[in-house]
């Protein structure tokens, strides 16, 4: 069986392009998201992205600050306990990012509709509010007739809302564990990663750790994303940093604040880019940037027991490097 491992820079080069619909598969703002993929998007100067984020994360906050996003569809744009997302906020307030608002459920429903290849998704939410009436993509329309148009229930004759399904060109999904064939386990809330993995036209995984396929055979009910849906697997531990990955590491509170503060101004962003995006070339340099002490501290998470059942199948760094060398050779 051929494996699907690929290095992060190659994954960005091969699977992304300027102007594409780019979806992130993540937990909520403080949870698991492949923020490192966004750093690499910036390193490769991707522009004019049409971003589809179920909820904001530091990745989106960063991409907005970098000017990499033109259009955005999103259910929640804050950082929960860490306040407003300054990079996103600046970009939206200035009009540089056109943000089409939905709710958290309607984003999930739109992925569901995309996964089923439905023409529309019935909605009992968002209707009757400005989420339905106001469209940033069609600002001249009020009430917008096409953002969440009415649909008539044929059984009762009553009017419901109709959400537009999402089928993003690419979804980059954070998972806790993947095997080299792309079978994946998520620990913690799936949020909408299950539905998104079916809605997206292509799926790339970013995994905290790699395991042997035998782990998947031991826990097939945990494998919510089977390899047959997956194009490529990127191994990048702490890709969610400074956010958390349940079972693996906690949120880096000081860096969450530092980062969000930096993204509040162009100068701050420039400094952040210099220090935390352009300052590493390799995974090891990235991990060194976080720092061994901080990695140790963040890894001492009270959720660590969640990973215990799978540790015996973890692939070593040497195993992984060997597989990656193979894929480079081929």
């Amino acid at each position: 069986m051929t494996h699907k491992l690929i290095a992060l820079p190659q994954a960005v080069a091969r699977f992304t392009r300027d102007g594409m619909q780019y979806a992130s598969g993540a937990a909520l703002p403080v949870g698991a998201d492949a923020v490192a993929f966004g750093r690499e998007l910036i390193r490769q100067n991707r522009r004019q992205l049409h971003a589809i984020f179920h909820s904001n994360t530091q990745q989106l906050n960063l991409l907005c600050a970098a000017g990499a996003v033109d259009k955005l569809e999103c259910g929640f744009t804050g950082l929960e306990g860490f306040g407003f997302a300054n990079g996103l906020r600046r970009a939206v307030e200035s009009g540089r990012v056109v943000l089409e608002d939905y709710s958290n459920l309607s984003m999930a429903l739109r992925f569901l509709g995309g996964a089923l290849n439905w023409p529309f998704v019935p909605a009992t939410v968002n209707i009757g509010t400005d989420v339905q009436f106001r469209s940033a993509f069609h600002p001249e329309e009020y009430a917008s007739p096409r953002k969440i148009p009415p649909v008539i229930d044929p059984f009762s004759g009553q009017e419901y809302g109709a959400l537009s399904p999402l089928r993003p060109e690419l979804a980059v999904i954070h998972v806790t564990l993947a095997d080299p064939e792309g079978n994946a386990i998520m620990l913690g809330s799936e949020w909408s990663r299950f539905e998104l993995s079916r809605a997206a036209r292509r799926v790339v995984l970013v995994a905290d750790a790699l395991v042997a396929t035998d782990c998947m055979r031991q826990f097939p009910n945990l494998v919510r994303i089977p390899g047959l849906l997956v194009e490529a697997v990127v191994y990048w531990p702490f890709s969610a940093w400074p956010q958390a990955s349940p079972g693996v590491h906690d949120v880096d509170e000081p860096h969450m604040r530092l980062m969000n503060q930096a993204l509040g101004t162009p100068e701050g962003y420039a400094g952040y880019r210099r220090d935390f995006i352009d300052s590493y070339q390799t995974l090891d340099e990235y991990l060194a940037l976080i720092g061994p002490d901080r990695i140790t501290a963040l890894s001492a998470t009270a959720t660590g027991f969640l990973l215990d059942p799978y540790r015996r199948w973890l692939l070593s760094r040497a195993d992984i490097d060997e597989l990656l060398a193979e894929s480079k050779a081929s």
Partner: protein
Amino acid sequence: MSLNYTRQEMMAIAAGREIRDGELAIFGVGLSLLAGFFAQAHHAPNVRAMTEGGIYGATPVGGLPWGVECNRLCTNAVSFTGGLDALGFLVASGRCEVGLIGAAQVDRFGNVNTTGIWGELLDEHYRPPKTRLTGSGGANDIASGCQRVVIMLAHEKKRFAERVDYLTSPGYLSGGNARARYPFRGGGPSAMVTTLGILRPDPETKEFQLDAYFAFSSPAEIRAQTGWDLQFAPTLHIAPEPTEEELTALRRVDVTGALRRN
């Protein structure tokens, strides 16, 4: 004040009192999470708490969670699913009995704005806000689907507006039975718990009226801090101050003392 407590603590306790034992309840992040888990720790031990991330049976460990699926809520959960399950199957469906949401701005009919501040009436042509807020998150879904909703917010005149800049989450829309025009599965907001008191909707008009004020507040102060011509409910009264048991329970939940930094 008979006990030493903060305004934030009073608000969290007042909101927590809105939750009944055994209910299926969804809490947001921050204050509403504390209010919810205070209720569980105090008078609603069998409350079935959930978050919009689909985290079931969890209690916070190690401090106030940074988010609704923060690791502080992941250490003792019995089930993790996802957003479609939590906000869709359990909330939008009408199954969830009570939801707690925050608000940046409300109007007299309990409509909520958490999307942005334009600072002036937005005309038919949409444009970016002066101040971008968080958007709906799960609030619209909770406001649409939960059997009843409790809104929590700071009582400041600019937040209690004649009309919200953007209607993010539905209260009673234009009032009366306007909500019935839409097939929401939930009944609408049952209370606004503010830093100064408690507002409840008139049964007919659905206009929110002052139902209770806190010991450190007054009806006059609240009216002055409300952007519409606030009416007093016939039941207007002083909300009971926190009991020692309530305060103890709340502080057990608020281990980091987030609510004591007034």
